[in-house]
């Protein structure tokens, strides 16, 4: 089976964007859409917000891989909400057999130290985990996950987050830490990774996206696409509405519709709404042009009225599939 996607080689999809633009929502929808063709997909969250549990309406996820959704053709979405503390203990165990030291460390505030003071170290743990998931083999043969989607830190921190192992490699010249860092970077710098930035068609998120793209490119990390989220629904006869200059034109229509009595007030209100709509479209087309200038593939998701629930995620997943992101 050859899935029809723009990203056939990508194992790790990193989803970032300005806070509140819909990173978590898009990451979840992308995981579902990757699972459509029968694949097994891991959705990993690192910000400790239990966003996945909320979206899929399940109890808070422990630091443990859980199956949270299924897709047509036997596809599955698994989820992992990474706790930095747990990840640290795993890491120590992996390299130094030190798990038992955990409680001592915790008492001393060492865990706090690592997870809050040395965000770099925290990022080492989280990126390491993501790469481990892309590499894991079931019974040593087939991959445990066909793809991993990372609900990543926001644009302002994404480059540093992904690039942390380069810094580590600079510090540790030899030894297990160095080889781990090198091997993580080899995946993060390759076609096996794609970084997608979620944005709204508004000035600030777009600006942050453009700044983020520049940074990611400077760091030679693989930028994937821009995902425009919460696009407003298309309004029929938009062009005519935008070009409206005459309230009387509206009153006439209202009279036809039998709204004679209040037609002046209503026409005025609808006229204002038409102007506002035109202003928003103007702004959106300016922002869209700025995104197009990046030359990156762009995918679009509409605003789902009523908000996001599991059904809405499936809806968004289908749209991503149709557009070729998955």
């Amino acid at each position, binding site marked *: 089976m050859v899935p029809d996607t723009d990203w056939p080689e990508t194992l790790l999809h990193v989803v970032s964007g*300005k*806070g*509140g*633009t819909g990173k978590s929502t898009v990451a979840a929808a992308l995981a579902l859409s990757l699972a459509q063709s029968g694949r097994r997909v891991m959705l990993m969250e690192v910000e*400790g*917000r239990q966003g996945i549990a909320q979206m899929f309406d399940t109890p808070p996820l422990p630091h443990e891989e859980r199956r949270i959704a299924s897709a047509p053709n036997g596809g599955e979405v698994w989820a992992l909400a990474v706790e930095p503390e747990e990840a640290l203990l795993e890491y120590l165990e992996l*390299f*130094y057999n*030190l798990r*038992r*030291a955990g409680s*001592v*460390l915790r008492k*001393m*505030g060492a865990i*706090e*130290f690592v997870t*809050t*003071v*040395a*965000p*770099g*170290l925290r990022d*080492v743990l989280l990126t390491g985990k993501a790469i481990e998931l892309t590499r894991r083999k079931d019974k040593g043969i087939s991959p445990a996950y066909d793809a991993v989607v990372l609900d990543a830190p926001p644009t302002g921190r994404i480059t540093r987050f992904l690039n942390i192992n380069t810094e580590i490699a600079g*510090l*540790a010249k030899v030894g297990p*830490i160095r080889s781990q860092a090198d091997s993580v970077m080899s995946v993060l710098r390759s076609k096996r990774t794609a970084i997608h930035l979620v944005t709204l068609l*508004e*000035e*600030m998120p777009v*600006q942050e996206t453009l700044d983020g793209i520049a940074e990611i490119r400077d760091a030679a990390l693989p930028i994937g696409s821009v995902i425009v989220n919460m696009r407003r629904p298309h*309004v*029929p*006869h938009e062009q005519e*509405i935008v070009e409206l200059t005459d309230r009387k034109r509206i009153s*006439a*229509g*209202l009279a*036809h*519709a*039998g*709204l004679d009595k*209040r037609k002046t*007030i*209503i026409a*005025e*209100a*609808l006229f*204002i*709404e*038409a*102007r*506002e*709509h035109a*202003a*928003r479209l103007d*702004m959106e087309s300016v922002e869209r042009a700025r995104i197009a200038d990046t030359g990156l593939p762009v995918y679009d998701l509409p605003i789902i*009225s*009523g*908000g996001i629930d599991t059904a809405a995620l499936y809806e968004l997943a289908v749209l991503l599939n149709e557009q070729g992101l998955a």
Partner: protein
Amino acid sequence: MSGQMRPLDGPALDIEQLIQDPRTRIIVCCGSGGVGKTTTAAALGLRAAENGRSVCVLTIDPARRLAQAMGLTVLDNTPRPVTGINTARGGSLSAMMLDMKRTFDEVVESHSDQARAQHILANPFYQALSSSFAGTQEYMAMEKLSQLRAQADRDGTWDLIIVDTPPSRSALDFLDAPERLSSFLDGKFIRILSAPARGAGKGIGRLVGAGVGLFAGVLNKVLGAQLLSDLGTFVAAIDTMFGGFRQRAVETYALLAAEGTAFVVVAAPERDALREASFFVDRLSADHMPLAGLVVNRMQNANADDLSADQARAAAERIEDEDAMVASLLTMHAMRLDEAARQRRLVARFSGAHPSVSLRGVPALAQDVHDLEGLREIGALLGQPT
């Protein structure tokens, strides 16, 4: 200009009274990311200034065009006068954008002699801490607020300071950050780690047993021996400042809780933002912080809401064939009304859970707020009598 909003269910937040009252000396705008904290802070500042107050706005992360419009182009970490405001009533407006690192440097400089300060500022561990400790930005925002307030008390420069808050992981970080940082710097762990560098010999192993000694070895490998030694030097250098840090954290907290401070929580009319706002309101009340109320920003405003969504849809259907354009306008109107109603339900739910919290809705403008005119418009919408 967008129309006025129908008042929300629940007690009304009287912004005009809040900013006019000379006893209001500090307003803190807080809430989750992207809801309009920076915009609200700036709009309140402009309005208060044009009403005759001497205002300083401390912003954290204004959008680029807004920053330019407010003259926030020289980034020297001190407030600059904003030009283009109406000073007929004798008010003034200054604004600054927080430079987190610079503020931290100032703290170090003010708490130690020059030689020691230089030593600390050059320390790599300090440099990492001052730019990436989780919560540093929050801590520095509060530190800057204390500085501005001290300056205002000393020179009478401002009678109202309005602070924007950083886009934290948790909207509450800025309440906790000063305490967290000072307790971290005071903490046992950092003391032990830095023991060797402070001349306690093979300190770590002896103090806490072999298991932890081994851990120090690991940390050495993970973080690099250099970092640990920098850390030790840093702690030794900063030792004399601990008292000052702690004292400062206590004072800032007291300033926030004092009479004359008002918290304005900002939220968007969305489930998640209102949930955060709920946490926020609860936390402020648990800490006895003075809450002025909740601003629900960017609400869908419907003009002529005497034409109901159902009526608009029915009318649209009647003229679909003769006048498709007006039909489309009517449908759009119906959708706006639906959205407005949905948002009001969400706000009503918040209000049901927090019946004593005063509320103020602000409609979404058709465009970003990126100049003084836009701020003035938001200010007017905030201040309008209810």
